[in-house]
C-alpha cells in the first residue's frame, strides 16, 4: 500500500471574509499525479494556495496533513522546506533578483556542485539566468521558469497551477517534458518520490502528462472524481455548464 502523502479532510477556506472552499476532501498517494478540472473562479487556485500555505487563504475548518504531519497551521516557508513546491500561474516580477538567484535559493540545503547552467538548459532558459525573474518573460518562459525552479527545489509534492495557460504549441511539449521529469514519470510508480496535483481549465496538459485521477471543482466543492480522460471528454463535449447542472441536480436531490 502506497503512503498517503497529502490528505485533506473537510477543508473550508475563506479569502477576505468570503468562503471560497467548502468541505474539500482529497487524498494523494506517493508517486501519483492527479488533476483538478474546473471553470474559472471555481476555487482551484485557492485550493493550491491553501495547501502551499499562503496567509491570505484562511482555513476555517478541516485540516491538511502532509506526510503524516498536520500542517494546517504551518507557515508557507516551512511547508516549502518540508517538501511542498508550487508552480504559479502568474508569479510576480522581482526586480533585481535574477533567475539564477531564484535557482540558488531553490537549491538550498542540496548538495553543492549542482550546475545551474546545465539545469537551465533543460528548460531552454540559459539566457534568462541573469535576467530579473519574470521580467518581460513571455507566458511560456514564465511556465518554464517556474518548472525549472521546482526541478531545483525537488519537492515531494508538486502543485501546478494551469501549467499550460498562455503557452504556445512549441512550448507546451517542453512544458510537458519538464513536468514528466519533475514527477519522475520515467520511474515505475512505486519508485517515484514525487506526487503531483495539477489544476487545469482546458485540460490540454493531459496530452503530454499521464495522470491517475481527475476531479471537477465547481463553486468551491469537488463534485466528481474519476478517469481523467473521461471527465475531460465530457467537459470538451458539453462544457463546464453541464458539470454545474450536474452538481446542482445532485445537490437538490440531497
Amino acid at each position, binding site marked *: 500500500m502506497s503512503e498517503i502523502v497529502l490528505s485533506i479532510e473537510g477543508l473550508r477556506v475563506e479569502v477576505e471574509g468570503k468562503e471560497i472552499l467548502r468541505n474539500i476532501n482529497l487524498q494523494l498517494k506517493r508517486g501519483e499525479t492527479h488533476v483538478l478540472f474546473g471553470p474559472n473562479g471555481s476555487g482551484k487556485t485557492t485550493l493550491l494556495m491553501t495547501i*502551499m500555505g*499562503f*496567509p491570505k487563504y484562511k482555513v476555517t475548518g478541516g485540516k491538511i496533513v502532509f506526510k503524516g504531519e498536520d500542517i494546517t497551521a504551518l*507557515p*508557507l*516557508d516551512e511547508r*516549502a*522546506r518540508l517538501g511542498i*513546491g*508550487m508552480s*504559479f500561474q502568474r*508569479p*510576480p516580477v*522581482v*526586480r*533585481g*533578483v*535574477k533567475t539564477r*538567484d*531564484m535557482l540558488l*535559493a*531553490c537549491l*538550498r*540545503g542540496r548538495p553543492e556542485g549542482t550546475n545551474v547552467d546545465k539545469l537551465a538548459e533543460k528548460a531552454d532558459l540559459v539566457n534568462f539566468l541573469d535576467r*530579473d525573474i519574470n521580467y518581460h518573460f513571455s507566458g511560456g518562459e514564465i511556465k518554464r521558469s517556474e518548472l525549472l*525552479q521546482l526541478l531545483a*527545489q525537488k519537492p515531494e509534492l508538486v502543485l501546478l497551477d494551469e501549467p499550460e495557460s498562455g503557452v504556445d504549441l512549441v512550448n507546451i511539449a517542453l512544458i510537458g517534458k519538464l513536468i514528466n521529469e519533475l514527477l519522475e514519470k520515467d520511474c515505475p510508480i512505486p519508485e517515484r518520490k514525487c506526487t503531483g496535483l495539477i489544476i487545469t481549465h482546458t485540460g490540454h496538459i493531459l496530452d503530454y502528462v499521464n495522470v491517475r485521477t481527475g476531479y471537477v471543482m465547481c463553486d468551491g466543492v469537488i463534485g466528481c472524481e474519476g478517469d481523467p480522460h473521461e471527465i475531460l471528454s465530457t467537459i470538451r463535449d458539453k462544457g463546464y455548464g453541464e458539470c454545474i447542472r450536474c452538481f446542482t441536480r445532485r445537490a437538490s436531490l440531497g
Partner: protein
Amino acid sequence: MNSSGTHRDKAKAALNKPASFGEDIDLTAYTSPPEEYTHPSHPSQLPAKDKEKMLGAGIIIDNPSQRIGTFIQVDNVPLHSSVRQEGIEVMAISEAFKKYDWLLDYWWRAVAVDTDKYTASVELNPHNGYFIRALPRSKTIYPVQACLYLSKARISQNVHNIIIAEENSELHIITGCTTALKNEPALHLGISEFYIKRGAKITFTMIHNWNPEIAVRPRSGAIVEENGLFLSNYVLMRPVRSLQMYPTARCVGENSVVRHNSILVATPGSSLDVGSRAILNARGARTEIVSRAITTGGIIVARGYIEGNAPEVKGHLECRGLILSEGGVIHAIPELRGTIPGIDLSHEAAVGKIAEEEVEYLMARGLTRSEATATIVRGFLKVDIEGLPPVLSTELRRAIESSEKDLM
C-alpha cells in the same frame, strides 16, 4: 589658488546665497585651519585604522596593484599623488596650476562659481583638491583612486577638482570620501568639474562613507563633447547628517552620452537630497539616470532632471525607492523638459515598501521571511552598470554588499 578676480567677485556676491535645495548649512560653525597636517609623508605609513576606513570607500593604500594612480588628501592638505601609467596625470590642483597656465580655462566652467554659498566658499577659501587628466588616446584599464579624508572635527574641507579626458582617451576613477571621525561634526564641500573631450570616456565611481554628524555639499558639473561618454556612479550606504547634491552633465557634442547611477541609503537622522541632471544640447545625445533609494528611517529627496534641446536626443529617468522602516520618507521628483519636437524623454518612478507578494513568492521556494526580504533588498540595490571595467564593478558591489546587512 590662481583664480581670477572675476571669479572672486562673483563668489563674494554669492557668499550668502542659499542653495536651491536642501537644508541651509551654517558655514560659520566650521573652521578652516591652516595647513598643519602632521601625518606621515607617504600613505603607506598611515595608521591602520585610517587605511581601513579608506578601504571601506574603495581606496587601497597597501599594494594598490589594481590602481594606476593615487591621490590622497587629508583635511585640507594633499598627502600624496602618484601615477603608474604614461599618458595619465594625477596631482594636487595647486601643482597643476603651477604646471599649466591653461587650467584657468577650465576653472568654474562646468560649475558656476556663484551657484550658491558653498561654491562661493570653496572659491574664497580653497583647500586644494585633485587634478586628473588622460592625455589624447591614453586609455586605462585600472582606475585612478582619489581619497578625500576628514580627520579633524568641526573643519570645513573645501576642495576643487578638475578631471579632463582629452580626445579619444579613456579614464576610470574611483573616489572615496570618508572620515576618521566617529560622531563629531565636519563639513565637506567638493567642487568637481569634468571635461570629456571628443570621443573620450570617463567613468567616475564615488563612494561616500561619512558619520551621522557630517554635512556634505558636493557640486559637480560635466561637459561632454561629440561621441564622449560620462558614466557617473554614486554610492552612499552609511549614515550622514545632511547631504545635498545635484550634479549636472551637459551634452554639447553630437551623440554624446551621460549615465548617472545613484544608490542611496538613509538611516534614521540622515537627510539626503540627491539628484542628477542631464542637459542634452546636441543632436543624438543620450542619457540614462537611474537611482535606487532605501530609507531605514531617514529622509530622501530623489531628484532627476532631463532636458532635451536638440533633435533626436533620448533620455530615460528611473527612480525607485524602498521604505523599510516607519518614519522613513522618500520623495521622488523626476522632471523632463523638452524644447523642440522629435525628442524622446521618459521617466518611471516608484516608491513603496517591499511587496508582500514578492516576499511570499520567495518564501514558497523555501526562504524564510528575513532571507526573502534580504534577497529582494539585495536585488533592489543591484544596478546593472554598462561600461564599467570589471574591477570597478567588483569594488562597487563590495561597497554595497558590505553595508547591506546593516539594513536588515
